[in-house]
């Protein structure tokens, strides 16, 4: 059986499974639609958070990214896991206790202002939209690479699947499909990484192999020989300041991402919210501690099997010629000596796209076609689960916060449910449009999603819980300044991608790049919130009572109705 056919079969099986779950989990009321009825067990919620959070980028791109950044790739490893410490300790239990449907729900109520609610809703939509565009593109790319269909058709199939389970089952459908998708993606990832680790080191547990085998040092030596950077040494591809700022921004941003935060509303109790955090970090860490190992082993293997080989030898490697067709892998015997050499300057004859690291590993390591098919299904699971979570966050901000809480508070349950379903459909269509016609800067604006979440939502929620004296004026000014600063800074630094200028208008903010500038925005937000709130009147008594109330995990559920 050909790899293509096997891949098709495995993808079809997993998709049928997701569709079945969507049908099984169909809901009839808004509580079921927005927070899955608040009945998800902590372990399942942990798996759903993990799938929700780990996108196509985590699955397909991250190990490759790290393998090209070396030590400094830790910005993604620490940044994207350390945020869960903030999330679980500082936000999750209290948001669960407060217990409504969305992030703007909390911000709007806590700051007794529909303006603040609207700003939070718009931030949610914007953050999720920039993110989901890339996911849909990812779905299309995986389809086109593994099944040789057009990217557009791939995007359409992905849209259809997500629309089905999200419209029918809302958060409940999304949750249980995410649990299934987590299982698929982690199995695919671990088998691939375990096999290549076992092949190179004899230790099939990638984390253990990375620490004890000495291959990271071997890769460093190999790279130094070729004139590439010292893999294992800190701050070779980024300054120490940037590593610090980007890690911080990704941590705070992770804790402020609305599609992740709302998942804590879907469990029964405050205790279950805390334990969801436990399960989430365990499930996420399984992939995140594997990625650096996969990066080292895959890159070592790639360099070793290509460098100093003759053109004929490389042409005979089946995966090499296959990947050469996609343009993600290029070789060109520039000096005509018949041998391909990897160097760090113009004489380089081998170009490897970092996205190929994960996707090509099974073939490079000569694993069975079954594993190759599984990786394709895993990549799709990762992209689809995140897309579904983002679509849900986006459409609930539109349907629940803007339509119901602000525009039509008298809407009936049925009307609200209908609007929620239509807004999911709308969100799917917009996301699909961006997937088919990707704005050139999609990859670049992921910095936006994190920077804005870090500079707007996270400080507002945190201060809302821990600072009783924080008032509407403080929060509004804090969010406004944090958002504006981060937004403008990213626009200026990413101007070539966004406005098409020849050079960035400014290259950095005192040495901090666009990915890290959100941490400055967050600090500004905190400072201004504090200063303004202390110079204006205290929040009303009932708000101060609300803050006291959410700090104690008793009687959860009382606040859970609208």
């Amino acid at each position, binding site marked *: 059986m050909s790899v293509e056919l096997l891949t098709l079969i495995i993808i079809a099986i997993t998709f049928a499974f997701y569709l079945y779950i969507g049908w099984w989990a169909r809901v009839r009321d808004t509580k079921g639609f927005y927070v899955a009825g608040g009945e998800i067990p902590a372990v399942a919620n942990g798996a759903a958070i993990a799938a929700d959070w780990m996108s196509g980028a985590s699955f397909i791109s991250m190990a490759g990214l790290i393998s090209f950044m070396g030590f400094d790739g830790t910005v993604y490893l620490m940044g994207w896991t*350390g945020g869960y410490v903030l999330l679980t300790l500082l936000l999750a239990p209290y948001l669960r206790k407060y217990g409504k449907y969305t992030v703007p729900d909390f911000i709007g109520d806590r700051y007794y202002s529909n303006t603040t609610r609207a700003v939070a809703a718009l931030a949610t939509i914007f953050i999720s939209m920039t993110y989901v565009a890339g996911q849909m593109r990812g779905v299309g790319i995986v389809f086109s690479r593994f099944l040789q269909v057009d990217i557009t058709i791939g995007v359409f199939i992905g849209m259809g699947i997500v629309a089905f389970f999200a419209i029918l089952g809302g958060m409940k459908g999304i949750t249980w499909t995410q649990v299934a998708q987590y299982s698929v993606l982690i199995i695919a990832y671990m088998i691939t990484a375990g096999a290549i680790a076992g092949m190179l080191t004899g230790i099939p547990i990638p984390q253990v192999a990375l620490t004890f085998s000495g291959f990271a*040092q071997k890769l460093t030596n190999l790279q130094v020989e070729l004139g590439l950077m010292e893999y294992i040494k*800190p701050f070779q591809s980024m300054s120490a300041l940037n590593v610090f700022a980007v*890690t911080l921004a990704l941590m705070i941003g992770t804790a402020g991402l609305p599609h992740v935060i709302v998942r804590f509303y879907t469990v029964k109790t405050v*205790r279950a919210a805390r334990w969801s955090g436990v399960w989430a970090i365990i499930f996420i*860490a399984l992939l995140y*501690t594997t990625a650096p190992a996969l990066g080292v082993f895959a890159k070592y293997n790639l360099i070793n099997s290509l460098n100093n080989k003759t053109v004929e030898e490389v042409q005979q490697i089946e995966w090499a010629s296959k990947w050469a067709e996609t343009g993600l892998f290029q070789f060109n015997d520039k000096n005509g000596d018949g041998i391909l050499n990897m160097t760090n300057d113009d004489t380089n004859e081998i170009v490897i796209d970092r996205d190929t690291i994960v996707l090509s590993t099974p073939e490079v390591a000569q694993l069975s076609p079954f594993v190759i098919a599984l990786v394709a299904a895993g990549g799709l699971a990762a992209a689809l689960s995140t897309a579904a979570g983002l679509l849900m966050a986006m459409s609930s901000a539109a349907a629940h916060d803007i339509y119901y809480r602000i525009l039509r508070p008298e809407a009936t349950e049925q009307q609200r449910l209908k609007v929620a379903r239509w807004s999911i459909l709308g969100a799917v269509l917009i996301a699909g449009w961006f997937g088919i016609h990707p704005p050139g800067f999609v990859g670049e604006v992921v910095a936006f999603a994190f920077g804005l979440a870090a500079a707007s939502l996270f400080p507002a929620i945190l201060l809302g819980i821990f600072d009783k004296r924080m008032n509407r004026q403080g929060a509004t000014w804090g969010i406004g300044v944090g958002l504006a600063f981060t937004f403008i800074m990213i626009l200026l630094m990413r101007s070539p991608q966004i406005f098409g200028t020849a050079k960035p208008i400014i290259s950095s903010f005192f040495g901090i790049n666009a990915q890290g500038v959100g941490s400055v925005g967050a600090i500004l937000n905190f400072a201004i919130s504090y200063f303004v709130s202390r110079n204006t009147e205290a929040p009303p008594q009932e708000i101060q009572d609300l803050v006291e109330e959410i700090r104690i995990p008793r009687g959860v559920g009382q606040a859970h109705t609208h």
Partner: protein
Amino acid sequence: MVEKKLTEKQQEYWKKNIGLIRILLIIWALVSYVGGIILAVPFSRIPFFGVNLAFWLAQQGSILVFIALIVIYAVRMDKLDKEYDFHEIKITDQKKGVSA
């Protein structure tokens, strides 16, 4: 709703909660920002099995510490809930008006 006489007890609970969070976040910052980044250059000269200490902390160790911190928090808070009798967390289904 909340009875007034519990307020003192609640404040004590909240204080202990804050104390726990503070300790855990200090460890979080020490491991990731101080150990993994600020001291990365000197730490990269300390061998740690097949890699060096800075690399291990940044790409493996810190993540393991994050797991430990979250687990400790969840376990400690369960204990605190019990101690302060907040462990009876009830779901009230308001439509039916029953506690489950």
